């Protein structure tokens, strides 16, 4: 089947989720839409089970931290429709006070570890996840290291200050 155009994809999403799913970009032809945490599972299920779209493949699930935004943590899903060879990117913004989002692991088994990784690094809590533990970091870690405020190196180190490099 031929590739689904972004306009058609957006149209179908709008037919089912009027006004709740909005386009935020289409960098390099990859349609990016924004959903919210109330409807994200319906959106994902719709995209997966719709006869025409068939986004049956969860390529990737991760998050991004934007400290200057109101919704600081953005969870990003990449889906792939293998029959039509179309990709879509879905984003859900979360505030730091309420980092809960429903799990996608009931829709795709593969979401399990990707969500654990996202929890591990950003502290996003996936409600209904069967086993939400840290995965790559040690269990007794107390911080979420991929957040921007977490420094890469020990801030007390002096031997790498800009001063020594003429900056």
């Amino acid at each position, binding site marked *: 089947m031929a590739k689904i155009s972004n306009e058609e994809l957006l149209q179908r999403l709008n037919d089912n989720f009027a006004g709740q799913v909005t386009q935020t970009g289409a960098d390099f032809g990859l349609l990016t839409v924004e959903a919210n945490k109330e409807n994200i599972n319906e959106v994902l299920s719709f995209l997966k089970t719709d006869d025409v779209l068939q986004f049956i493949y969860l390529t990737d699930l991760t998050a*991004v931290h934007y400290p200057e935004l109101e919704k600081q943590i953005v969870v990003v899903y990449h889906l792939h429709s293998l029959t039509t060879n179309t990709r879509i990117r879905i984003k859900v913004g979360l505030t730091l006070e309420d980092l809960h989002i429903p799990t996608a692991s009931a829709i795709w*088994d593969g979401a399990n570890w*990707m969500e654990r990784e996202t929890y591990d690094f950003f502290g996003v809590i996936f409600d209904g996840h069967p086993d939400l533990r840290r995965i790559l970091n040690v269990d007794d870690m107390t911080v979420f*290291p*991929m957040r921007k405020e*977490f420094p890469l190196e020990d801030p007390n180190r002096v031997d790498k200050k800009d001063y020594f490099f003429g900056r």
Partner: protein
Amino acid sequence: MQNHPVYTDNDPQTEYSTLNLGPTHPATHGVFQNVLQMDGERIVSGVSTIGYIHRAFEKIAEHRPFYQITPLTDRLNYCSSPINNMGWHMTVEKLLDIQMPKRVDYMRVIIMELARIADHIICNGVLGVDTGAFTGFLYMMEHREEIYEIYEEICGSRLTTNIGRIGGFERNFNPIAFAKIKKFLVRFPVVLREFEALFNRNRIFVDRTKDVAAVTAADALSYSWSGPILRATGVDYDVRAMEPYSSYEDFDFEVPVGENGDVYSRFLVRNEEMWQSLRIIEQALAKIEKEPTDIFHADVPAFYLPPKEEVYNNMEALIYHFKIVMGEVDTPNAEVYHAVEGANGELGFYLINDGGRSPYRLHFRRPSFINYQMYAPMSKGMLLSDAIINMSSLNVIAGELDA
């Protein structure tokens, strides 16, 4: 551990025994730990623990300029680092909208396919070792060495290659490199044919691998599997064919698929992929001969690091060198997802750029990480010895698993 029931008495008749498979067991080929509950030789349940060699590449990448991220990608799947390097270069080039000359594309294709062969040599060779046949591994290993010598000729290093630059290659392939590639194309098919003759219809090997760890296509897709192990279940998803990058659309090759999704199918798919890679390299060599011989990078001085002799003798080169190294080149404010077909599956780079010197956020979609999560669930009810060869055939590379 907390998922397992705790037994207090030690009666083997009534209770399961706990077995730590790994983290440093010779049969696991890397730092993987699985805590298994065993009923005799049979696995009742298991829990995978990963992260032993987590090095925070995504965090480090947020503090490094683009060209310094290439060495980080080397250390993902270190059995086929050139594919990771090229994938990263192509991601940045997609972001910057740089078109490569055809010759560079073909040079990249040669390197990537050699890397794929090197990776499959290891995987299939070691699968033989785990089933008790050491010979095939030793036959094949000699030719991985030949591939490494080709890398050495091209970039100077062997395992963590750091081949190429953003915008092309740092130097042209020299005549010795071409000679070595041609020699490899003559010598390797002989050994691969011998290897297949040794295994494909070998009664012991077939008995050990057929119908072991069979996975249905539906399960594999639900677990987001990709690469040879997905194709072994019958799904013909190959990024090279679906979304051609680096001029793969110019090549005539097939995407081999299996039937059962068992260890034996995966073995056959990988062998067939090596034949297809050889075909691609042959075509690429023929195509390169029709291109001008002195082109090995795109004409993008603002992003391609100039050669050192230019930097010392030429004003423009010095300026560009300074601008690139100090990160004073403007880059677009955009998000890009670029996927390449790694040796283990879809290797994706999700790059968010804010115009700064380093990525705002870089996420690696690592096939080993995603492929490995079915390991513990699928081991249920399996014999321990089958679980070992299942792990070999998944070809999980610890560097890519943990990033």
